[in-house]
């Protein structure tokens, strides 16, 4: 465990800055602990994310991966440990945006207004509509701006949610299994969209997923949480855009799955 943590710190110190003029947020977590009703979910977890990196967190359900993401996004506070998000350790709600498993669109706001929600306190400003419109164009839904969310398909709703998360140009995007409820084809489509957006904007992305193939398709690095700490930290060194089912991807996927299942067998 300690070995895994030290490798990460070593890599962190040598990590290059991807966008020097507007450095994306980085995450530094030290000895992070969180318990729910006496049940410890995270136990002194160390986690470092260099700026601009796309990290996937995998693990069995209930391992604490969503909890870690919620702590990073500022939705919850840690019981112990130190957590800083962003270059200036600003309030995570300023620099981080979350995409949830459900689209969580406001049913009573048109698609465009839902995207403008992502501007937070800036939503009343004059250029809000223009910025929302542009974000909507980036996810390919500019023609649905005036619709109610209720008439959109599941995939379209998640794309609106992505536009909402991106409209404020966040430095950190926390993705909590945002594609979990989509069908297989829409998932692949959304993965490609997420990748292209990330390649263009180079924010730090933290993706929680139970799907190892999805993690391999998107992430620079995959970490696994086990017993409340990081148990595995693998670099994914495959060229982008990645092919589903390429031999390297399959090999990596097999080794991570073997590790996940080994843990299963131990219990």
């Amino acid at each position, binding site marked *: 465990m300690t070995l895994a943590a030290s490798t990460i710190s070593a890599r962190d110190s040598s990590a290059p800055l991807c966008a020097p003029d507007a450095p994306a947020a980085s995450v530094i977590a030290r000895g992070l602990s969180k318990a729910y009703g006496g049940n410890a979910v995270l136990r002194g977890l160390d986690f470092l994310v260099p700026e601009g990196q796309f990290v996937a967190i995998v693990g069995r359900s209930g391992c604490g991966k969503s909890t870690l993401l919620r702590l990073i996004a500022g939705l919850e506070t840690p019981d112990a440990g130190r957590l800083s998000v962003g270059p200036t350790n600003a309030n995570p*709600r300023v620099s981080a945006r*979350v995409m949830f498993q459900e689209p*969580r669109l406001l*049913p*009573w706001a048109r698609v465009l207004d839902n995207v403008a*929600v992502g501007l*937070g*306190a800036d939503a009343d400003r004059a250029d809000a509509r223009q910025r929302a419109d542009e974000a909507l164009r980036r996810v390919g839904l500019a023609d649905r701006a005036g619709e109610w969310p*209720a008439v959109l398909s599941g995939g379209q709703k998640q794309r609106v949610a992505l536009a909402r998360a991106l409209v404020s140009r966040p430095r950190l995007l926390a993705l909590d299994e945002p594609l979990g409820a989509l069908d297989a084809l829409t998932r692949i489509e959304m993965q490609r969209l997420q990748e292209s957006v990330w390649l263009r904007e180079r924010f730090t992305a933290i993706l929680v997923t139970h799907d190892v193939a999805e993690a391999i398709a998107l992430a620079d690095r995959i970490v696994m949480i086990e017993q409340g700490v990081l148990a595995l930290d693998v670099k994914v060194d495959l060229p982008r855009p990645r092919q589903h089912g390429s031999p390297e991807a399959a090999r990596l996927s097999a080794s991570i799955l073997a590790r996940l299942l080994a843990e299963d067998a131990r219990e």
Partner: protein
Amino acid sequence: MTDATSAQLDFVAKSAAAARPTRMRNLGERGAGWALPVASLVLWQGASSLGWIGESFLPSPLAVLKAAWRLTLSGQLPENVWVSFLRAMAGLVVGGGIGFALGLANGLSRVSFGLTDTTLQMARNVPHLALIPLVIFWFGIEEEAKLFLVALGVFFPLYVNTLHGVRSVDPQLIEMARSYGFDRWHLFWRVILPGALPSIFVGLRFALGVMWLTLIVAETIAAQSGIGYMAMQGREFMQVDVVVLAILIYAMLGKLADATACALERRCLSWHPAFQSKP
């Protein structure tokens, strides 16, 4: 409570009807709703004309219409309708406004809820019409008596449904709004209030039913003007046509209030799948 149940059924039926596609069909359905009342009127008139129903037992629709014309010419009818309408609206605004405000306060604040909800739930179980003798003691047959009773009657449906609406707003949406940096003000205006609105409208439509019921009773027992008073005068002077006219006017006012609430609902809840026509 029959009022409440029928309002709820009506609500469901209207929602389903609104979802159907064509305008023509909508018109057809609306027409169908009036078929039964019109048929009953025709039957009633026929039975009266044939002498099956005595004029002193139940006057014919034509006789009622004549009475309406007579009272309109004398100015009595418009004046009494206006007085009743004003009383109903004043009671609705005062009682409904307080119910709405308390519902919001108790839905948003744990302290406010803890302080007042138990008391309100106890008071809710007292039939407000049971207070009539007391109200006559306090206010006599002045306007305050009617205002008090109507306001009390409409208070509870609005309070209960506003509270329920605020509490049942999807917590995931609230979490989303918080994580996107909404302050309390924006959270209320853009998430909580719109989310509570469907339930608030159910409360409003219940309240309208209670409003007319209360006003009828109050005006029949203690008033010197209004439709209920007009009906009681009719009884004293053996004018059955005036009594029947008063009952019919209550029915029409009730329907009018409900239709207004429905139109308002359709306008405010146009985002709701139940009120959307599929393209």
